[in-house]
């Protein structure tokens, strides 16, 4: 089987007030070589009912050590076409965390918009109440997102652009409210979607001449 060829990575930092943990949370995006252009892939722990925000230790210790760093051992994952040790691979992601950007920065620099999409049965909306006292609003109905909430075939589908102010926080608490309101068999979900054409992160060539010098 062809190895995964990771050609870039970027980590998005979400503000400290995003969850009740009062510490920064992160979203990690890997870029994998594909036929036409690199494919961005959000790295999560696989839950369909959680937005997948991760603390730095969760990203390194669980998400990466639990999957991609192991693949580096048998070269079923390579970086820029070359084998890499799992230690060096984790080092690349540590650098990405240190150089993290905001959702706005991700859009500006890499052309990717982060959208939190939360869905659930419309009949559960009145029961969507926050289990956390730190929530900025105590129910979905009280929030600005309840206005003009798209509903189709009995399902609501809320989309929140993480570039908006406090969007990451609001999306987190709403996904928690929906989880509390829904029964196990209810079709509800929460996910971060990557929208837009991605430009993979590249490092500038330090020795490339400046355009003005070339023209001269």
């Amino acid at each position, binding site marked *: 089987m062809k190895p995964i060829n990771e050609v870039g990575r970027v980590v998005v930092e979400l503000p400290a007030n995003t969850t009740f943990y009062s510490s920064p949370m992160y979203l990690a995006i890997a870029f994998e070589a594909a036929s036409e252009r690199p494919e961005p892939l959000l790295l999560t722990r696989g839950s369909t009912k959680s937005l997948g925000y991760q603390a730095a230790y969760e990203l*390194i*210790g*669980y998400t990466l*050590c639990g999957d991609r760093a*192991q693949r580096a051992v048998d070269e079923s994952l390579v970086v820029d076409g070359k084998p890499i040790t799992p*230690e060096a691979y*984790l080092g690349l992601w540590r650098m990405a965390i240190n150089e993290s950007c905001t959702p706005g920065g991700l859009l500006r620099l890499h052309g990717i918009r982060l959208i939190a999409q939360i869905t659930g049965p419309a009949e559960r909306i009145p029961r969507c109440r926050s289990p956390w006292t730190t929530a900025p609003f105590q129910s979905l109905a009280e929030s600005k997102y309840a206005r003009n909430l798209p509903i189709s075939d009995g399902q609501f589908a809320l989309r929140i652009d993480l570039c908006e102010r406090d969007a990451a926080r609001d999306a987190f608490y709403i996904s928690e409210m929906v989880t509390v309101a829904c029964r196990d068999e209810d079709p509800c979900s929460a996910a971060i979607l990557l929208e837009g054409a991605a430009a993979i992160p590249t490092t500038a060539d330090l020795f490339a001449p400046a355009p003005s010098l070339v023209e001269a």
Partner: protein
Amino acid sequence: MSYRLEYQYAAFTHVMPNAPHDLRYVIGVEGGDNNLYESRSGKRVRSWTVCMLGTPTQVLKQAVYFGGACEGGGLKPFGRDGTPESYIRRIRRLLSEQTPVAQGCWYPAVVVPKGHALVDAAKALGLETSPEGLYGVEYEHIHVGPDQRRLVFEFMDRFPDLNAWSLAKVSGLPKS
């Protein structure tokens, strides 16, 4: 919240039959929880377990997985904070140094959840099995003799979902 301490490491090697270059490893680790103490001595409880097993690639993948626990403080080799990278390097050194273990041995001890695919595979090989119960969970003990050690590694090759401690045990290693 509790964390695991690891105190000692030992690596046993095993050459697969008819394949002198196919070296397999059994990694024993002495470890225990930070909040469990022996009532008489007051010392932290610790015991030796087979934590990783297989080819160098299989062992290192297991090391990456377990080393991840260092990042959140859930695993502290020698009682000190560490990183997954340092844990992986420690296991890598263990594999490359191949220091002979002065005291102790490892042996097959295959116990898997009842209904695991290995049970049928073992029966197809003519191995005896017997049921075992532990903390209300049903397991199947697959009887593998000391002269059939290669089967432990063949089981790991075929069923990589199994943990090393489900396949082998160590004995006679010195207590810290």
